[in-house]
Every structure is written in structure tokens, then in C-alpha cells.
């Protein structure tokens, strides 16, 4: 998975409609900070770069490279956990 990958949520994983949690098989992942905004765009149509750009529009004062690195890092960790796929 790299900055140009287009991630999607794995089968059987979805955002809770109101709470800040990702519902996954046999559990939940608590979403802190901007991770809920990120996962809202993990829909099989946005690239990781596009997700980072969207986040930068919401937080214009943030460092662009850092945001890209953080978004990629988060999604790679979630891919390792099997809840996000390319």
C-alpha cells in the first residue's frame, strides 16, 4: 500500500453511524482524532493522496508531508490488522 493506493474497508467492517468506532468482526476499533474523517473516505474510490488532501483542506495549518505520512501509516496499520484492503 502506498500513497497512490485506493483503499477500501474490508468485508464485514463498517463505521458506526454515530459513535467514533469502526465495527469489525468480533470487535470494535476506537477512532481517535481525525481517523474517523479518514475512514469516511476509505470507500474504494479515493486514493490515499486524495484522502490526505481532503484532510489538509480541513486543517490548512498542518504540514502536508506529515499529514500524508500519518494517513498512509494509519491505513497501513489497519491493512496489517485486516480491516482495510487495497
Amino acid at each position, binding site marked *: 500500500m502506498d500513497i497512490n493506493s485506493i483503499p477500501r474497508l474490508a*468485508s464485514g467492517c463498517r463505521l458506526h453511524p454515530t459513535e467514533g*468506532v469502526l465495527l469489525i468482526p468480533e470487535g470494535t476499533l476506537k477512532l481517535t482524532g481525525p481517523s474517523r474523517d479518514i475512514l469516511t473516505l476509505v470507500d474504494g474510490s479515493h486514493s490515499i493522496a486524495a484522502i490526505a488532501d481532503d484532510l489538509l483542506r480541513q486543517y490548512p495549518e498542518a504540514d502536508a508531508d506529515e499529514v500524508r505520512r500519518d494517513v498512509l501509516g494509519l491505513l497501513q496499520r489497519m491493512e496489517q490488522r485486516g480491516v482495510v484492503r487495497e
Partner: protein
Amino acid sequence: MTEAIASPSLASPFSLIAEVTHRCPLHCLYCSNPIELQRAQDELSTEDWKRIFAQAASLGILHLHLTGGEPLARKDLPELISSARESGLYVNMITSGVGLTEERLATLAEAGLEHLQLSFQDIDEESANHIAGARAHAIKLALVPVLKKFSLAFTINLVVHRMNLDRLEAFIALAEALDPDRLEIAHVQYYGWALKNRSLLMPTEEQVHRSLPIVEAAKQRLKGRIHVEAVFPDYFGSFPKACVGGWGRQMMLVNPVGDVLPCHSAAVIPDLRFDNVREHDLAWIWRSSAAFERFRGDTWMSETCLACPRKERDFGGCRCQAFMLTGDADAIDPVCTYSPHHGLLQTLRIPATDILPIWRDQA
């Protein structure tokens, strides 16, 4: 106005286990269901279950686990699934797969089923069918490519014990070839029928220790592809497990006739009285049912447990196990090295040499 009996700080449970029926085409000799199974004619109605799901969601429960018995034995399963989804629950089903055609699976997926769990009993058909007490192995294998056509999370459970633990590497390879999203490697839990067959099923200490690096290697090898979870048998540990995340802390189980239990096997404890969903709603039961209150917190604990910092982690271990092994439900879980009964487990771990009878549900 009546006052709430339980502490107002009581957190919501996470999950609801719905044993929608005890009917099952399999008769697994490790089944943890109670020996006294509930009869079909006494089962809760569709409307009862719909009401329970709505109550569960408003209580804050997130996950629903449809199990049994075999949930497919219920004709109203699609309706149960769609009502649970409408209430906002995440819907998981634990099934043997027997009777699950592509057409039927399509109706369940359309109703909103999100996760399906299928267990395997062994690597070869003859042994797997013997353990399951039914010709189910080939049916399960044939079901997997059908499952792949649907966007469901798919978990394979490998149930391990003395009869198959030596083949664990090949067993994991079988699961890997079936390419699930998740793989659970679970030792038999010694309740219900499994407890009756304990001498047949209890692995040797050597088997357990040989299996640990195999599980660890599989976790590493499959990382990012198949999420592996393993349940270590607590009979071989020195400290108890946090059974069901602590009594009355995380989950509620509704059995086929509507009794609400704090865990699968709580009915073995003789002085517990369970409240029923026909008389109370789940929120009341969660807060006030005497069965849930019985081992909440630490007031019931022995001096040894009260003084032990581990009580915050294991919540006093498993009450059913304490009762089944010592006859006293308040006793220290004998898995704990500080239990005066800890020596019992050493005896139970010695494999029996006699030819043993096999006990199973004959329904």
C-alpha cells in the same frame, strides 16, 4: 418511583449472544452447550427476538452473535437479521453451514448479515465427521467458494484438542488454503458436553507446548492477509482468564427460551436464578438481575483475590469452572496458582489410558 438497584456507573455491555435455537444437525463431542437442551416448541418467537434486538441496541450493545445450536434451523433467520440491522447491531452468525445453499445465503446477506463463522473439526473427512457426529466436513469445504461470492467477513474456527492437536500445522494449512479473513484457533472449553468428554479431549502438556510456536509462526506468516487469533487453554496456565471479560461486564446471552445468562454455562451454578425476556427488558436485566449481580465487582471474592492486583485484569476468573472443579462457585478459580485446589488441574491434565465412552447430544 423505584430506585435503580445497581450502581449508576455500570457500563453498557458490548455484545449479545443470541442462542436462537438448540436444534443442531451436528453433535460435536466438544459442544459447550448445556446438557439439558431447550426444546423447539418452547423457543422464543420472531417478535420476541425483534424486541430483544431493539432493546439491546438501546442498551448500547454493538455486536450480535447469532448462534445455537444451528441458527439455520430457524426459518425466520432473514427476518431476525434484518430487524437486528435495523436496530443498529452488527450481525455475526456462527454456523455449521449444513443446509446453507447459495440461495439461502443470498437472502441472509441481503438481510444484512455481516460476518459468518464456520468451524472445522479436523483435516480429514473421517476424523472430522467423527468429532462432529455428522457428515459435515465435505459440506463445509464445498460452502467456502460459495461464501466468497458475498461481501461478508469470513472466519474459520479450528477447534483443537487432544485428537487433532498433533496435526495443527496441516490444519492451519487447510484453513489458509480456504483463505478466510480471520482464523481462530481455539482450544476446547470444558463446559457442557466437552466437560463430559474431557478425558478424551484434554491435550497433553507436551502437545500444548509444541503447538505454541506453530500458532506464533502462523500469526507472523499470515499477517496482513489472515488475522489470526488463538485461545490458549487455561488449564495449562498459572493464572485464570478474564472469563467473558468479567462477570456482568461485557456480554449478555439469551438462550432459546429467553432466559438471560451472564455466560454460556452459568446454568451449571445451582443457586443462580435467571430472569427472562418475557418478563423484563434487557436494560432491567443488565442492571438488576440477581444472576448478573452475583459475581459483579469484588465483594464475593476470597481474601486472597481481594488482596491480589490481578483481580483488575481477570475479575476473579471463571465462576463456572470454580464451581465445576471445586463444588463452590465462590472459590478461587483453580487455574490460579494461588488456589488451594490448583493441584487438581495437574491431575486433570494427565491423559486417561482407558478406552472412554463418547458422550454427545442424541437429539
